[in-house]
């Protein structure tokens, strides 16, 4: 659709002008630093871990930041009275976000390929990032809807990180051995995200992969419906003429 393309390229242009892409590249440099300082030469196993942190938290943050700018500058009002649908708006934003995550993927992969050893299924991790970033972009929309200001948004992200992201990381490092909690983690979207990303390096059971795909696809669909419904409320609130 033409509108999506216009919105998508506009979004990327602004991400550049507002230094959002720049910030994202700086974060990539941090991940490169991590790769640089690891003793292990084969980074295939920690690679998905870094992308897990990046694709989840950066997605939420970038939706939050760009929408925050639109609110602050009132451009959201202009968009609301333009001949675009909310679906186009939401999808274009999420796509731009995914592109930025994919850029990070390639930057990291190139580094690992040249300076370390890496053996992962590139297409697999590419697809995993697309779906993980899409899901978390939608989470970013929800957080933005319910945040009064930027601090509020950051607080929301922190809560998500502590409740959803950190336990999955701890478990991956073998720091959670309680069987019940391990089972419980299958219920959170971050576990599914982690499994899909790790699958590109191998060692993940087939049923876990299918479960994760199903979880994130169904989860994204439901979340999309909610984000789209709540958009009207958000629009009414932000549309002061």
């Amino acid at each position, binding site marked *: 659709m033409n509108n999506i393309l*216009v919105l998508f390229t506009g979004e990327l242009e*602004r991400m550049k002008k507002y230094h959002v892409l720049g910030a994202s590249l700086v974060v990539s440099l941090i991940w490169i630093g991590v790769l640089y300082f690891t003793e292990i030469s084969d980074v295939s196993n920690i690679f998905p871990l870094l992308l897990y942190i990046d694709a989840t938290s950066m997605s939420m943050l970038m939706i939050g930041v760009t929408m925050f700018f639109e609110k602050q*500058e009132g451009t959201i009002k202009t968009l609301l*009275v*333009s001949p675009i649908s909310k679906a186009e708006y939401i999808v274009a934003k999420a796509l731009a976000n995914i592109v930025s995550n994919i850029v990070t993927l390639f930057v990291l992969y190139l580094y690992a390929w040249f300076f370390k050893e890496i053996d992962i299924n590139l297409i697999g991790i590419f697809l995993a990032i697309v779906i993980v970033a899409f899901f978390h972009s939608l989470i970013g929309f929800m957080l933005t809807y319910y945040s009064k200001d930027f601090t509020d948004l950051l607080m929301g992200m922190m809560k998500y990180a502590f409740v959803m992201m950190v336990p999955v990381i701890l478990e991956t490092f073998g720091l959670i051995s309680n069987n019940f909690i391990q089972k419980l983690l299958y219920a959170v979207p971050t576990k599914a995200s982690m499994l899909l990303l790790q699958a590109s390096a191998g060692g993940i059971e087939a049923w876990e992969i299918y479960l994760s795909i199903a979880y994130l696809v169904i989860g994204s669909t439901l979340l999309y419906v909610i984000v789209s419904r709540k958009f009207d409320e958000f629009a*009414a609130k932000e549309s002061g*003429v």
Partner: protein
Amino acid sequence: MFKVQDLQFKYPKNKENTIKGISFEIKEGEIFGLLGPSGVGKSTTQKVLIKLLDQYSGEVTYKEQNLKSYGKDFYQEVGVGFEMPVHFSKLTAEENLTFFKKLYKSNADTDELLMRVGLYEDRNKQVSEFSKGMKGRLNFVRALLNNPKMLFLDEPTNGLDPKNARIIKDMIKEFKGNGGTVLLTTHLMNDVDELCDRVAFMVDGKISEIDTPKNLKLKHGQKQVEIEYLENTGNNETKKAFFDLEELGMNEQFLELIRTKEIVTIHSKETNLDDIFIKVTGVEKNE
């Protein structure tokens, strides 16, 4: 163009209706003014008409069709000039306009519009470097970039110097001259007097009066003579007296006064829309 019947609207958070049953019509090709004190629901009414609020009761039709039946294509022929700045501040004026133009089927010659409002030289400047008045003029250009048929303007001359306000007003008149329809929200009675074909006064969520500016002046206006005179020639204490202009020559009190007192000033006074605003809305203008 628009027909509004018994429109009522309540913001979800509020207990009371903000719009309490209003009816009016905006005819094709006219400039319709929406006036009233701050907080009476002018912007809310406008938001309903531009399809930003849809949980209203009553009926709103656009071109004889229910407003709710229109999709996003409704915006192809509508232009909205916001009061607040609504541009990407890190993009230039040109980049902003180019981006928004791509969303519309029809595009105006924005270079020409920029020239008219005196922003052409600054088109490659970041909007964050624009002054308040420049941003206002850019808002106006943005509202016109899709060659709209229906234009919504909220305080279009706010913050502009007289010369630029003149240009914008002339452009609004031209827009109307080319068959366009305008809903104008403003507090500036001079603008209303000059531009509006009809005005509606809103008070507390209702419309208290709809008419042409001329009829309003006839209806509420009085023509008076104001005389300032010295009560006693001895001290400098002045007093004021008012007389109806009509049959002034036969007004004995008036004649007596100018015969016997020393006159300091003498003025004829016509009620202007400002006075009518206060009279009709019962509120002193506070903006």
